[in-house]
């Protein structure tokens, strides 16, 4: 059996296949005009600009994220230096230059903080001395109490009776 006729209609024709073609050919497609309604011709959408914009935004977000991560390590000391510098103005500039809103609280807090810290140091020492004095006083009172108690026991009549046998 030769398959060429079945494959591409070349070679020796197969009578059975020819007969099938003849019979089934009646069902073959009959050309009919295609009725396309008056629709707009579809256009292919170009997604490249949208993709480019999306990629740019994504890159910007990534760069921003990286910058935010790196920023605190490098720039925070500079900001601190900027705040501290105006906090110690020269004494000559004081009457000439009005106090800025930024500097004022920094200076004020520093002064108050300085006084408070000095007084607190003094108070601490006084407290410690007072506590020591109190302890010494309490110790002295305790010793006195003990001695008074001893005197009292020795001079009381009950103890005198108890000690009679020893004397007698």
């Amino acid at each position: 059996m030769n398959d060429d006729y079945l494959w591409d209609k070349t070679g020796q024709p197969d009578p059975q296949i020819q007969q099938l073609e003849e019979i089934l050919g009646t069902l073959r497609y009959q050309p009919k005009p295609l009725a396309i309604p008056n629709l707009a011709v579809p256009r292919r959408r170009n997604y490249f600009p949208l993709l480019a914009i999306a990629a740019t935004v994504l890159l910007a977000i990534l760069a921003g994220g990286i910058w935010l991560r790196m920023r605190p390590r490098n720039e925070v000391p500079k900001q601190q230096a900027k705040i501290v510098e105006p906090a110690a103005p020269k004494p000559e500039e004081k009457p000439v230059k009005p106090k800025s809103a930024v500097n004022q609280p920094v200076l004020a807090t520093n002064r108050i903080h300085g006084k408070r810290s000095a007084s607190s140091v003094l108070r601490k020492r006084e407290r410690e001395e007072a506590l020591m004095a109190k302890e010494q006083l309490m110790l002295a009172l305790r010793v006195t109490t003990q001695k008074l108690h001893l005197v009292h026991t020795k001079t009381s009549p009950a103890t005198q009776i108890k000690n009679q046998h020893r004397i007698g």
Partner: protein
Amino acid sequence: MYATADMLLTSAKAHAAEQSQEPAIEVVLVRAVLEGDRDGFAGLYDLYAPLVHGILLARVPRAEVDDLVQDIFLHAFKKLHTLRDESAFGPWIAMIARNRAVDFHRRSKVTVEINDELRGSDTHDSKAREILELIRGLPEAYRETLVLRLVEGMTGPEIAARTGLTAASVRVNLHRGMKLLREQLGFMEGL
């Protein structure tokens, strides 16, 4: 008889030779339609209507085929901009046709059966329909290829080029499908 290596090589060469021309035509037509030329789609319709007709004939009742062919090409016209590879218009519309046939059976199974029975007693080409029914009873891989070859008169290389199947698989499907059909036809008188 199975295809030998020489036969496959020869057919592959013929297939490649045909493919080198055919895709160029469909690519030009698809591009023309996407650029606004409505007549270009008529060219695609003329080229691929037999393929769609054959695919549907292997799956749905004959009375429904013509309307479905029109529907499929209308759908293809609306969705043509979604086709990424212009040279794949054939496989793309073949897939639309197969899916539409599945949808048809899902929606109107009862109607199809009644229509087939009614038409069987009226028409002159009853023998053709009997053979077509036998082909429809074959495994899916064989029935489409056999209908395209025996009903639509397409050659093996044409079927391969338009459906996107390889020439080897079309050849195997034709050979095995024909063998099964011959066995089925052995029970029919006059063949």
